[in-house]
C-alpha cells in the first residue's frame, strides 16, 4: 500500500491541472459551475496526499519520465515523497480546497468566473509540483510556474490599471530573485558529481563535503536571494502589499499559505547546504528579523484591512527566516522544525484571516477601508468569531496554533548563541539581540491584529456610506457595478454558508493544529522522514518556561493595548499619531521604500534603456538593414538583367555553360 502512493504520486499535481483544464475548455458550458471540476480535482489531490503522508520516507523518490536528456545533461522528472514534501503537500491541498470552496461563493457573478478557477487549478499544479520535485531544475520550473500563476491571478481584473501594474510588479520583482536561483543552479551543475541536480545527489554528505569554498558561501547566498523575492523579504518584499489588488481568495491562497512559502521551503530543503556557511545563516536571520520588524511597523498604521494582513504575512515570513537562520551547529534540526511548523500553522490562520477579510469586504460592498465601517460583530457573527480565532492564533495566545509555533522559533533563537559559541563563531550575541527584537515584533503583531479586529468588529455599528470622509471620489455607476457583480447579496448581510463553512473549518484547524502537531511531537517525528534530516546537527535543548511565558505576555499586552485604544471610539489614537507625527507619517507611507526604489534603481534602468535604444536604432538596425539590402541590390541591379524572358538568351547561356564545362573537362 505504501508503495502505491509513492508510485502514483505524480497523480497529485495532475488532478488540479486536469480540473483547471476542464474548467478552461468547458468555460462556456460550465459558466458559474466552473469551480466544481477544480474543487473536485484539488480535493482528490488532498485525499491522495494523505495517503502519501502515511507512506513517506527519506528515500522515496520515483522517476516519472524523461524530461531533458542531452548527453551528460540529464534531468528526469523525478518526484520525492518524504516528510517535508508530504507535509507541505497536504497543507497546500487542504488550504487550496477550502479556498476554492470559498471563492466559488465569493467570485459568483464575475463574468470571468471560469478563467479564475482555471488559473487556480494551474497554480495548485505548479505548487504541488514544486514541493514534490526532487530536482533543482524541476523545482525551478515550477517556481516559475507559480510566479506566472501569481501574475495571472493578481492581474485577474486586468482592466483595472492598478491591478495590471501590481501583477507586473510582482512578476518582475520575482524575476529578480529567479536570477539568483538560476545562477545557483548553473553553479551547482558545474561542481556536483555526475552533473546530477537532484536533491539526493546535491544534498548528500559526500557532495557537500567536496564543495569548493566559494560555492559554500555563494550558493546559499544565491538561494537566499531567490527566496527573498519569492517569500517577500527585504529588499524584495515590495510586491506583496500591491498584490492585494487581486481577488481576496487569491491573496489567501497565494500570498498567505502557499506561494510565499516556497522560498522558506527551498531554504529548509537546502538546510544541509546552507549549514556549511554560518555567515549566510546569520545573514538570513538578520534579514528575516529586519523584515519582520519593518513590516510590523508599517502594519500598525495601515487603514486597509487587507494591507494589514499583507504586511502581517511579510512579518511572519520574516519569523520563519529567523528560525532558519538560527540553525547553527546543534540547533539545526530544531530550527528546521520550528520554521516548518510555523509555516504550517501560519498557512491556516493567515488563510483564515484573509478569507474573513474577504467576507467582510464582500458584505461591505467591496469597501475595505477600516475607517468606513465598525461594530460588525452582530451583523457578521461567523466572520467575526472566526476572525477572532485567527487573530488570537496570529498573536500567539495559548492554546492557539500560533503560540506553539512562535514559541519554537523563540526557543531556537534562544539556543542559537550557545550553539554558535560551540562552533567558535564570534557573533553568537547577535542571536540574542534578535531574540529580543522578535519578542518586540510579537508584541507589535498582537497589537495590530487586535487593532484590526476591534476597528472592524467592535464599537458602535457603522456601515459604509458615500458621505464618509475617506470615501473615494466615485460615481454611482461604479458602485452599482460592484453590487451587481455580487448577485443577490446586500450590504450588511452575513456571507452565504458556502463562504462561512471554510472559515469555520479553518478556525477549527487554527485551534487544534498547534496542539496536535507540536506538543505531541508528531510534526517533528514526521520531519524525521525528510532527506538529510539526520545529518543536521542536533543537541539536546533544555526546555525552559521563560520563553513561552514571555511570548504570552507580549501577545496579551499587545491585544490589551489595542483594546484600550480601539475598543471604544476614542481620540487616543489620533492624539498618539499627532505626538509621533513623523514616525506615523513614515509608517503610513510604507517608509517610502517604493519611492526610494523609484529614484535609485528605476531611474538608472530607464537611462540605460534609453541609451541602449539609441544604440540599437542607430547602429545595430542600420547595420542589419544595410546587410539585408546587399542581396537585394545585387539581385535587382546585377542579376535581374539576365532574366529577360528571351528563350534564345537562356539557350545561349546554357550552350555557353556546356562549352565551358566541356573545356574544363578536356583540359583538367
Amino acid at each position, binding site marked *: 500500500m505504501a508503495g502505491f502512493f509513492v508510485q502514483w504520486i505524480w497523480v497529485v499535481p495532475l488532478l488540479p491541472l486536469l480540473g483547471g483544464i476542464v474548467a478552461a475548455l468547458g468555460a462556456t458550458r460550465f459558466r458559474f459551475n466552473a469551480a466544481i471540476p477544480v474543487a473536485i480535482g484539488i480535493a482528490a489531490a488532498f485525499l491522495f496526499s494523505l495517503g502519501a503522508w502515511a507512506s513517506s520516507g527519506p528515500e522515496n523518490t520515483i522517476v516519472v519520465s524523461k524530461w531533458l536528456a542531452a548527453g551528460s545533461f540529464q534531468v528526469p522528472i523525478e518526484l520525492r515523497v518524504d516528510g517535508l514534501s508530504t507535509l507541505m503537500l497536504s497543507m497546500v491541498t487542504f488550504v487550496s480546497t477550502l479556498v476554492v470552496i470559498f471563492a466559488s461563493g465569493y467570485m459568483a457573478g464575475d463574468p470571468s468566473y471560469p478563467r479564475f478557477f482555471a488559473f487556480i487549478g494551474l497554480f495548485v499544479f505548479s505548487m504541488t509540483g514544486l514541493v514534490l520535485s526532487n530536482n533543482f531544475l524541476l523545482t525551478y520550473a515550477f517556481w516559475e510556474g507559480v510566479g506566472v500563476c501569481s501574475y495571472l491571478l493578481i492581474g485577474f481584473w486586468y482592466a483595472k490599471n492598478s491591478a495590471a501594474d501590481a501583477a507586473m510588479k510582482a512578476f518582475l520583482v520575482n524575476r529578480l530573485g529567479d536570477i539568483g536561483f538560476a545562477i545557483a543552479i548553473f553553479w551547482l551543475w558545474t561542481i556536483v558529481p555526475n552533473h546530477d541536480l537532484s536533491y539526493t545527489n546535491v544534498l548528500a554528505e559526500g557532495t557537500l563535503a567536496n564543495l569548493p569554498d566559494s560555492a559554500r558561501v555563494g550558493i546559499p547566498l544565491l538561494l537566499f536571494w531567490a527566496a527573498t523575492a519569492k517569500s517577500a523579504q527585504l529588499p524584495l518584499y515590495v510586491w506583496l502589499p500591491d498584490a492585494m489588488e487581486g481577488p481576496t481568495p487569491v491573496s489567501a491562497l497565494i500570498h498567505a499559505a502557499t506561494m510565499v512559502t516556497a522560498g522558506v521551503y527551498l531554504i529548509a530543503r537546502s538546510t544541509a547546504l546552507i549549514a556549511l556557511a554560518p555567515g549566510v545563516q546569520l545573514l538570513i536571520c538578520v534579514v528575516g528579523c529586519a523584515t519582520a520588524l519593518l513590516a510590523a511597523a508599517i502594519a500598525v498604521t495601515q487603514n486597509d484591512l487587507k494591507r494589514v494582513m499583507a504586511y502581517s504575512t511579510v512579518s511572519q515570513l520574516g519569523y520563519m527566516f529567523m528560525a532558519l537562520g538560527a540553525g547553527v551547529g546543534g540547533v539545526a534540526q530544531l530550527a528546521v522544525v520550528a520554521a516548518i511548523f510555523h509555516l504550517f500553522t501560519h498557512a491556516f490562520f493567515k488563510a483564515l484571516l484573509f478569507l474573513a477579510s474577504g467576507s467582510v469586504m464582500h458584505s461591505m460592498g467591496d469597501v475595505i477601508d477600516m475607517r468606513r465601517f465598525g461594530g460588525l460583530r452582530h451583523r457578521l457573527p461567523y466572520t467575526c468569531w472566526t476572525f477572532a480565532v485567527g487573530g488570537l492564533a496570529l498573536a500567539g495566545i495559548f492554546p492557539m496554533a500560533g503560540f506553539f509555533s512562535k514559541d519554537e522559533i523563540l526557543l531556537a533563537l534562544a539556543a542559537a548563541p550557545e550553539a554558535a559559541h560551540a562552533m567558535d563563531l564570534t557573533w553568537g550575541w547577535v542571536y540574542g539581540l534578535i531574540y529580543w527584537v522578535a519578542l518586540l515584533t510579537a508584541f507589535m503583531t498582537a497589537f495590530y491584529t487586535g487593532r484590526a479586529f476591534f476597528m472592524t468588529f467592535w464599537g458602535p455599528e457603522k456601515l459604509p456610506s458615500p458621505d464618509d470622509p475617506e470615501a473615494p471620489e466615485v460615481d454611482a455607476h461604479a458602485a452599482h457595478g460592484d453590487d451587481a457583480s455580487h448577485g443577490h447579496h446586500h450590504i450588511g448581510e452575513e456571507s452565504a454558508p458556502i463562504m462561512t463553512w471554510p472559515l469555520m473549518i479553518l478556525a477549527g484547524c487554527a485551534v487544534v493544529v498547534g496542539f496536535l502537531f507540536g506538543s505531541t511531537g508528531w510534526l517533528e517525528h514526521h520531519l524525521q522522514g525528510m532527506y538529510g534530516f539526520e545529518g543536521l546537527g542536533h543537541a539536546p535543548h533544555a526546555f525552559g518556561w521563560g520563553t513561552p511565558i514571555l511570548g504570552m505576555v507580549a501577545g496579551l499586552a499587545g491585544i490589551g493595548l489595542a483594546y484600550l485604544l480601539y475598543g471604544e471610539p476614542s481620540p487616543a489614537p489620533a492624539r498618539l499619531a499627532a505626538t509621533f507625527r513623523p514616525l506615523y507619517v513614515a509608517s503610513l507611507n510604507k517608509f517610502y521604500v517604493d519611492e526610494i526604489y523609484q529614484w535609485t534603481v528605476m531611474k538608472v534602468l530607464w537611462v540605460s534603456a534609453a541609451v541602449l535604444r539609441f544604440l540599437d536604432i542607430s547602429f545595430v538596425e542600420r547595420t542589419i538593414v544595410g546587410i539585408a539590402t546587399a542581396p537585394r541590390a545585387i539581385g535587382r541591379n546585377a542579376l535581374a538583367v539576365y532574366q529577360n*524572358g528571351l528563350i534564345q538568351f537562356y539557350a545561349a547561356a546554357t550552350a555557353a555553360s556546356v562549352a565551358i564545362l566541356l573545356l574544363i573537362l578536356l583540359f583538367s
Partner: protein
Amino acid sequence: MTDLLTIDYLRDYLLVGAALFALGMLGFLSRRNLIVMFLSAEMMLQGTALSLIALSRYHGNWTGQIFTIIILTVAACEAAIALALIMILYDRRASLDITLWRELREEAAPDLVPIEVEAAEAEPVEPIEGPETYPQLTPAGVEPEHPIQPWTERRR
C-alpha cells in the same frame, strides 16, 4: 570478315554529326522566326542520329539504329505539337517573332533592343506586290457577292 567501319570512318561520321549539331544550335540561337528555330532544332536531332547510326555499325549491334527510329518518332510527335502551338501563338500576335513572347521575366531587366527601334533602324524592304498591282480587267456585269474572304483579310 572484318567490319568495314573502322575507327577512322567512325571518327569522320562523328565529326559530321558534331558539325550538324553545332550548326543546328547556331540556327536555334540566332534566328528569330519560330519556324526556322524549330527547323534548326530538327537539324540538331539529325546530327545525333548520324552519330548513333555510325556507332551502332561500329559496335556491331542494332541498338543505335533502334534508338534512331525512336528519335524519328519523337521528332515527328514533337513537330506536330510544336507546330500546333506555333499556330496558336501566331493567332495571338499575328507574328512568328519569338521576341514578342517575353512575359516570363524580371521587370528590372531592360529590353535589349526595343522592337520599335529595331523596326525603325532596319532598312526598308521592298514590299511584295499584291493583287493591287495586277492588271485589272473591265468588270463585266454586276460583280456578284463574294462568299470567300479576300486574301488580304486573312485570319489574324
